[in-house]
């Protein structure tokens, strides 16, 4: 739960549906946007979105990455047939964005708005601890960065004169560097946009650029991040359709998907990101904070290249879920053997609520099931944990080592939490 990017499609759709509630004069954003996903039947799409056939179109991937023009991933001024052909071709492509490769799966289609380059404006909003900041410039589009000195910043503190500011009363009339016929239009738009931004759970919103056509504001490119914890306040407007997609290229592999499905079934938290399937160090760590620290320590001691995964189990998963989670990891790390062996770190800090003996039961079941493979793969196991009933849990682990003839070293709170990391590294030499 945190600040997460949303699709340009969702941002524009939400704007088209909700923005005018916050506007003094209706802004009247174009309501026509179509999202093409891998499930979309391109032949049937115009039936539900007939405007596709009557206007010229813009098509671009809608997958939380920018610089689509520079990457030649922007189709302008296209008929529907041209747009559909372009999507069909791009759907097959794998592209590399900022070093991450992945297939193109989602596309935004919207009406094409011809406009002169000097009519590209910039507006962005960002939240900080004590204030929101609105950025506005008449020099938008690709020129905004080189003209950053012309960007007008308006600071909106959370509190003024000892009172919380009601965002619905904020107005930018007379505060933006814009003159002439467009002044009223733009002031009305930016004012409404900020009120919308503040009310609807945004944490970042950038429209670069927007233009004016036939007296109406047209957002051309939009990037937004929203606070997903605010969803309960916005069920009426976010509905059930607003999604928080994973970043580009972060398609889940089968193991990650399995863990994600497990995670969805329990109130506890189960996480897995495979970093290196050939890695020799596999941390199965309890607790969000501890799991980061174990991964950090592996990397900080110079063994990032050996780190198989990042993951965590926390929030007191029951024995069955812990067992299934452990099975995924044990399976992953024993698919290929390494002559120098591997290390499994069953780590964790001192738990607050989690019954250590109970969660270890699930892990012990998994270890028992994979005992042969673990022996074949020369896997050394290091355990470090504390918390409710930890003594029983650790004793059970120790006994298991003897029973299964597996090298299991077991430590409690008297040993520094991450000490098993250097131990494992030394043993893998």
């Amino acid at each position, binding site marked *: 739960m*945190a600040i997460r990017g949303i699709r340009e499609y969702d941002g524009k759709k939400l704007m088209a549906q909700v923005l005018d509630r916050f506007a003094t004069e209706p802004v009247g954003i174009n309501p026509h946007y179509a999202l093409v996903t891998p499930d979309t039947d391109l032949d049937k799409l115009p039936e539900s979105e007939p405007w596709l056939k009557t206007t010229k179109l813009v098509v671009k991937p809608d997958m939380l990455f920018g610089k689509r023009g520079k990457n030649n991933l922007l189709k302008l001024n296209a008929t529907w047939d041209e747009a559909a052909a372009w999507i069909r071709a791009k759907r097959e492509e794998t592209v590399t964005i900022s070093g991450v490769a992945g297939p193109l799966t989602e596309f935004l289609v919207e009406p094409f708005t011809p406009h002169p380059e000097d009519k590209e404006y910039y507006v962005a909003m960002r939240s900080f601890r004590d204030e929101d900041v609105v950025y506005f410039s008449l020099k938008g589009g690709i020129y905004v960065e080189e003209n950053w000195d012309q960007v007008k910043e308006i600071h909106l503190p959370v*509190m003024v004169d000892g009172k*919380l500011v009601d965002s619905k009363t904020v107005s930018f009339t007379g505060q933006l560097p814009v003159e002439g016929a467009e002044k009223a239009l733009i002031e009305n738009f930016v004012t409404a946009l900020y009120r919308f931004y503040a009310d609807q759970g945004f944490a970042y919103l950038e429209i670069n650029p927007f233009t004016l056509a036939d007296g109406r504001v047209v957002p051309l490119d939009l990037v937004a991040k929203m*606070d997903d914890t605010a969803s309960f306040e916005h069920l009426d407007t976010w509905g059930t359709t607003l999604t928080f997609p994973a970043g580009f290229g972060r398609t889940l592999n089968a193991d990650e998907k399995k863990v994600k499905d497990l995670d969805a079934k329990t109130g506890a938290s189960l996480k897995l990101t495979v970093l290196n399937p050939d890695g020799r160090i596999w941390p199965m760590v309890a607790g*969000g904070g501890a799991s*980061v620290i174990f991964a950090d320590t592996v*990397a900080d*001691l110079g063994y990032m290249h050996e780190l198989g995964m990042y993951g965590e189990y926390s929030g007191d998963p029951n024995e069955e879920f812990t067992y299934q989670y452990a099975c995924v990891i044990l399976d992953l790390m024993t698919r290929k053997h390494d002559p120098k062996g591997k290390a499994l770190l069953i780590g964790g800090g001192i738990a607050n609520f989690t019954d250590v003996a109970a969660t270890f039961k699930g892990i012990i079941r998994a270890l028992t099931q994979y005992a042969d493979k673990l022996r074949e793969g020369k896997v050394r196991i290091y355990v470090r944990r504390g918390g409710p009933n930890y003594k029983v849990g650790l004793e059970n682990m120790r006994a298991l080592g003897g029973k299964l003839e597996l090298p299991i070293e077991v430590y409690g709170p008297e040993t*520094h939490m991450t000490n098993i990391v250097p131990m494992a590294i030394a043993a893998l030499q």
Partner: protein
Amino acid sequence: MTQYQLFSKNTRAIVFNLQVNAVQRMLDFDYVCRREKPSVAAIIDPNAKQGGNHKVFWGTREIIIPIYNTIAQATKRHPDADVLINFASFRSAYGTSMEGLREPTIKTVVIIAEGVPERRARELAAVARQNDKVIIGPATVGGILAGGFKIGNTGGTIENIIESKLHRTGSVGFVSKSGGMSNEAYNIIACNTDGLYEGIAIGGDAYPGSTLLDHLLRYEANPEVKMLACLGEVGGTEEYRIVEAIKEKKLTKPLVCWVTGTIASKMTGEVQFGHAGAKAGASNETAEAKNKALAEAGVIVPNSFDDYGLKLKETFEKLQAAGKIPERVLPDTPPIPADYNALKAKGQVRKGTNFICTITDDTGDEPLYCGIPMSKVVEHDMPLGELIGLLWFKKRLPAWGAQYVELVLRLTADHGPCVSGAHNTIVTARAGKDLMASVASGILTIGPRFGGAVSGAAKQFSEAMRKGQTPLEFVNHMKNVNVNIQGIGHKIKSASNPDVRVTLLKKFAIENFPKTPHLDFALEVEKITLTKRNNLILNVDGAIGILFLDLMASGGELFSEQEKAEIIEFGILDGLFMLGRTIGMVGHFFDQKRLRSGLYRHPMDDVLYDLPEPSELGYDW
């Protein structure tokens, strides 16, 4: 208390939401610290409109903590409590915390909830600052003043608290983002120094109400704190404020700090760690950049978390060598009685039960009816009659037996509004009483005269047959002892106008029961009684009871002699009549409600009034 002290050994808190375990953990801590008063002054339960009391252990004995419905009520009655520990959900955390901040007696609000929207958190932080108050959280476990005051679940179990020496004061002021890591951090501090003075987890959100620096500055000002320890986190720029404070000499005590999440920038793509704030948006927000900046400012930064304890130890030993650490004596700690449930879970304690149940078990995933899971009952479409067999007799009735039970239920379901059960139900319903009262009033009429002949007949006939009496001997014997034969005779029905219900029961039994010795006997008795009067027929109560004897007799070894006797003696057969007739009585209740029937008053002309004269009783007035 001075500005830099949020808590002392006398601090009292109000806990929002009835958090049974957290409150008990706080009181256990208080007890081992030998606090004079429990740290929980009051509990707020928004569901308890009338307030109430909550029982907790104070050592071995129990005490009560008052429960209030609102924050305002609690603060009014407990002005000495200046901490609000808010366990409200993420939905209501904002409103309740704001309410707490506006109470003049509350100085510190702890927000436990994870998932408070960031805009709301920023507003709370601003209001707190405006009113000179401190927020700890959101998304935190809280904090602890070693040996003095513990927030909620901080520190884990009481065993861990004592192992990590949190029940007595030390020299280290600690602050972290992560609450989950705080137990570990306190353990590391206990292992490497003279222990914790105070520890705060500010929470993992992007906009915590109070910051790492806020608490470090408090520790700086507090002469009891000799050294500082901090765990930062990837994301945000808070640690740079610490760097600034050091440069401005606002922080001068030795500080050991490590920013976790160094792995983040080594991973491609965007991985959100457990905490909402744990994401580096810019290069200066990475853990490496922050660790580097801290080290350059003179903070003691380990090479990795693995050296964190070592750095604490070195720093502490330097201070100790310089004579800056006072002598600490381990206090005498009263033992905390083990918790029954915890011991039970470990199999280390046992206790006799006060109740025994042999028919249903609801302790597992699904209820068991006599050992049979409810899902199987549904899956196999178990007839209601068979289910009654399980729960009443603990027997698997044969199919014809189960059918017989259902037949009885159908035949007894109702008998019109005039019989005493339905009548009472109707009168009670019309008096405006509810379903339970109305039907209970009807059920209470079931007994020897109404419906009770089922049991009575079974009793008399089984006894006669057990004694080996012939039907004639039985009839004569009953006449001699002047007892009416139960189950024989009807007000309206007669040999020439037979009761169709009895006909149906007989037909079913003859067609389905393997044998019907009791019915055969009863029919012989009927022949004799009919010679006396035309309406002395086997009635429906008699037929039901007698056929139930046949059911038990025909099931082979299903029922032992003792069980048969007990079933009759315990009145289980009245249960059949009651269960069936309840269907009708519920129906009569709803019927009267639908009809909007008013209060029933019996007509006076339907009552014969015949009172004695006062003089007959000896009164002269």
